[in-house]
């Protein structure tokens, strides 16, 4: 459904993505793992239309994706960005409602709102709080909830478990599975490689801007090189 081919992205002199190619099929959870600075966020931003790329193609359902974030969203691709990016001066509720900016179906929006509050009861409690003063974890929940409100076909999640308490990390991954059940496709970027691989169908390993490995999540998780580099000497 989403197809990236030979993508090259530069930041000034820095060559951040060097010929990245990947595929995502409908209904899949695909995860990208890689160390800090590997280019994961860069890849998501390129798909979302934030970055001009020199070379390569990004196609969605056989159509070339425009380099314009709002058009990409319109086509049903929604990113939940790294670092939350909530509207710091708006209330929690306003934030969530903005997620539904492009939607017109009032009743369905209401329904989805209830669903979001169900997933994140903390947000319901803080409905009227100014989003900028939420704790780090609360902001992350808000960003996810807001993303869900746009009712996308593909969700691009950039490190959704970042800064979340262990209990919530579990919840977030459960939610991701729930979201998939809602007939959505998910591209998940994660540092928490264990968890990500445990719920994903397929995985890519991104290193220094290049895809180093790809395959089924299980295959990647079992790969000794990956285990050493990304899963680390995990205690327990």
């Amino acid at each position, binding site marked *: 459904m989403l197809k990236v081919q030979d993508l090259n992205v530069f930041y000034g002199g820095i060559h951040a993505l060097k010929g990245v190619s990947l595929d995502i099929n409908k209904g899949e959870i695909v995860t990208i793992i890689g160390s800090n600075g590997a280019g994961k966020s860069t890849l998501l931003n390129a798909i*979302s*239309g*934030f970055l001009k790329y020199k070379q390569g193609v990004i196609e969605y359902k056989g159509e070339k994706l425009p380099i*314009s*974030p*709002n*058009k990409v*969203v*319109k086509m049903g691709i*929604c*990113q939940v*960005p790294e670092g939350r*990016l*909530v*509207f*710091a*001066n*708006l209330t929690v509720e306003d934030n969530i409602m*903005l*997620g539904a*900016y*492009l939607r017109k179906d009032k009743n369905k929006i209401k329904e989805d709102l209830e669903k979001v509050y169900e997933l994140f009861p903390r947000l319901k409690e803080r409905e009227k709080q*100014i989003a*900028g*003063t939420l704790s780090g974890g609360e902001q992350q929940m808000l960003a996810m909830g*807001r*993303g869900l409100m*746009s009712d996308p076909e593909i969700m691009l999640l950039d490190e959704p478990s970042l800064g979340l308490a262990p209990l919530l990390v579990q919840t977030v991954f459960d939610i991701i599975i729930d979201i998939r059940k809602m007939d959505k496709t998910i591209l998940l970027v994660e540092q928490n490689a264990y968890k990500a691989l445990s719920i994903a169908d397929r995985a890519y390993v991104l290193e220094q801007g290049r895809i180093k490995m790809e395959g089924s999540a299980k295959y990647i998780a079992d790969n000794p090189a990956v285990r050493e580099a990304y899963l680390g000497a995990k205690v327990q």
Partner: protein
Amino acid sequence: MSQFFLQQLINGLSIGSVYALMAVGYSLVYSIMNFSNFAHGGVIMLGAYFGYYYLTKLGLPFFAAFIAAALTTCVLAVVIERGAYKPLRERRAPFLYFIISAMGASIFLENIVIATIGPTFKSYPEILSRTPIQLGSVTLGRLDLAMFIISAICLALLVFFIDFTKMGKAIQATSYSVKASALMGINTDLVIIVVFALGGFFAGIAGVLFGMKYTVYPQIGIITNKSFIAAVFGGLGSLPGAVVGSILLGIIETMTSGYLSSNYRDLIAFVLLIAILVFRPRGLMGKVTEDKA
């Protein structure tokens, strides 16, 4: 209440409403772009000139000229945005650069008028009778009343637009975070154009009204400094703040002239401004949010 006080109050309100029309354009742009658009004064000045020429040279009827002038400045403001700010935006330059670019634009606009049209004053033909309405011994200019009403209507429309339309919501969101708004499917580039167009529209209206009431000359921009101060007074980026700040500044100025000293009117107004900022660092209605560490 004494007649004198009442007269000064009316004077203050009418001066304040001129400031308000100008300040709203500032605040609007500030709220999205987070910088003070000093070119606004230049656009207002051109609005006054356009209105004048549409009326006298093209012989348009008043309302047609009025709207045409506002539409022209609309386009002009957008052109300035494209030329002087967009490249900076794409580079994510800090706000200082925007301000300097805006100053450059303002110097440019003022002087291009001097160089082409010339420095002489132009007077609008008399559209509303200059004989004022008498309320006891207090007088109320017809033009002032008209201005007050037009300002009020425009501002009400603007508030409606911002609060109740989808584009309005997009403007609000974009003012908080451009990237996040884009992720919500908002066409942020369009939002910025709309904001400048709106700012330009208001500049045009302000310019024509200003020109009708006073005269048209290349240095009209100077007076917009006052409206800038008023916008800060009320809290930058807040539309109600801009209006309240303007009206208050107008009244403070007139009352200072009336009861204290016209020599030190601006001084007192400034001292008051600084005092307000010391106690309310974000103006009267600007939002105070603690920086979260």
